[in-house]
């Protein structure tokens, strides 16, 4: 007798079911996707309008800002695409349907990640991808192998960091069942912060964001290197590449929090 699928298999099988569910309403899905892409694109237009008035913002040119913005957006929305199911956990617990996930012979977290998956989550990736490409083409980057490698590296680190935060969201949802709204302050707020040049926010805030919240590693440090900018804080160079360590540490903490939350849920059953 075979073995039930591992985390990835469980995740993909569940995503497929949700994706196919969404496809049952094809016309409405297409309309929503066009709409979602346009709305996400509007933010990009706003950025262009700002740069219509000023040459550079916090020392970044339009192309550089486009890359910075696009890379952070892409990282966030890829994580949104993959992990955002944790946001629906509170509702599941309230409806009593979370139990159904616990009586299956597969991991709970992969099922939760895949929850309510819809192809609509691809929409914001279209303008974000466009901004990345436009930024990379337009910015005067002195390309080296390292810089080229740093582009996907930045993206992956970002996805990993945001992904860990989605796990925290899930753990938090279990602990405070209806806290979906409260947690948006952290995720969507953080996404906004890391999209704009950190230099704008002042030194103390920068320090906080660099060390307190690991969002900065998502694209600030590696992007400075790709774009050939000096770090205004003068942090040692290796720190610019510490993103994966941060991501790994964050995942450890997140999984620990998740397990603790699940244990709590099982002892309270609320």
């Amino acid at each position: 007798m075979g073995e039930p699928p591992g985390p990835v298999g469980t995740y993909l099988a569940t995503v497929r079911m949700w994706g196919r569910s969404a496809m049952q309403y094809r016309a409405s899905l297409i309309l929503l996707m066009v709409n979602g892409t346009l709305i996400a694109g509007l933010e990009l237009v706003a950025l262009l309008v700002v740069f219509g008035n000023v040459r550079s913002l916090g020392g970044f040119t339009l192309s550089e800002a486009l890359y910075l913005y696009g890379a952070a957006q892409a990282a966030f929305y890829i994580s949104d695409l993959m992990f955002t199911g944790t946001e629906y956990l509170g509702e599941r617990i309230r409806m009593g349907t979370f139990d159904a996930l616990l009586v299956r012979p597969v991991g709970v977290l992969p099922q939760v990640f895949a929850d309510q998956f819809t192809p609509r989550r691809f929409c914001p990736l279209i303008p974000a991808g466009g901004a990345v490409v436009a930024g990379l083409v337009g910015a005067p980057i002195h390309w080296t192998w390292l810089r080229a490698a740093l582009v996907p590296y930045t993206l992956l680190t970002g996805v990993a960091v945001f992904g860990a935060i989605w796990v925290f969201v899930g753990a938090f949802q279990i602990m405070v069942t209806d806290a979906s709204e409260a947690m948006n302050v952290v995720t969507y707020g953080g996404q906004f912060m890391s999209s704009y040049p950190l230099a704008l926010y002042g030194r103390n805030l920068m320090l906080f964001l660099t060390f307190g919240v690991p969002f900065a590693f998502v694209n600030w440090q590696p992007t400075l290197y790709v774009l050939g900018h000096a770090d205004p804080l003068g942090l040692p160079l290796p720190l610019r590449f510490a993103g994966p360590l941060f991501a790994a540490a964050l995942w450890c903490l997140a999984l620990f929090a998740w397990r603790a939350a699940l244990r709590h849920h099982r002892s309270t059953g609320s």
Partner: protein
Amino acid sequence: MLIEAENLSKTYTLHRKTGRLKRERTTVEAVRDLNLSVAEGELLGYIGPNGAGKSTSIKMFTGILSPSGGTLRVAGLEPIRDRKQLARRIGVVFGQRTTLWWDLPLRDSFALLHRMYAIPDTRFAHNLKRYVDLLDLEALLDTPVRQLSLGQRMRGDLTAALLHDPSVLYLDEPTIGLDVTSKAVVREFLAELNREQGTTIVLTTHDLDDIERLCRRVVVIDHGTVAYDGELAVLRSRVAADRTLVVDLAAPGPPLEVPGAVVTRVDGPRQWLAFPADANAAELVSAVAARYGLVDVSIREPDIEEVIRQLYSS
């Protein structure tokens, strides 16, 4: 023994805000010192009033909740520690909360379970055919679940819970809201499953008919512990809850006077008469018919809540 619970208990700690900063801790014993053993092949009625600890204990049996005390073994496994292994040995039907995929055809939900439970292909094909035949689902396999009636959906949920050949099937209110025909189909199916396959069934229900038609053994849970464990007939005889005769008269009138019965309610031409469980209903009906113009009659058995209430007042 398939299920073996010894002094099983579950305590919830509730925090209640009593002041601006003060919080009061209260503990609630949802289950206390519950002892239960269920042998392979039993069909057990697991009943009790709401809030008695029924669902808390079932959640412990299925590995959803962790016990706060006592020991628990299901199919030789420790439910919380061996959750995934246990999941392959049990089937759960959550009554009104379907686990089928709402917008997809039944077939798709079954295909997902095929994969999740790693059911060997031949086994899956065999089981699917068997349950689809027994539950008459063939014509519905390609219908999205949202378009199914409650009864059809329940048949789908039953199949979904059984495709991996579980040793024990937990059912939570499987007949609630179903019409008479669907109820009969579900009951007949469960009886056959238990008889032919030897699947152990733990049935939670408020419908005394379910229990009566299916279960020889009944476990009554009250105040978090086993209040009664034995044959249904014994429970019934121990609790002399009245039955109710509902009569529709030709015309409204004063409360009937019939020996051996007491009118408990009058609503126009309809009257409700309570009579002892061991009295002969046929004699009572003919006594009423002899004196009054009778249009229609029906007899209601005491419902499970009433039997349990009686069990406690006596």
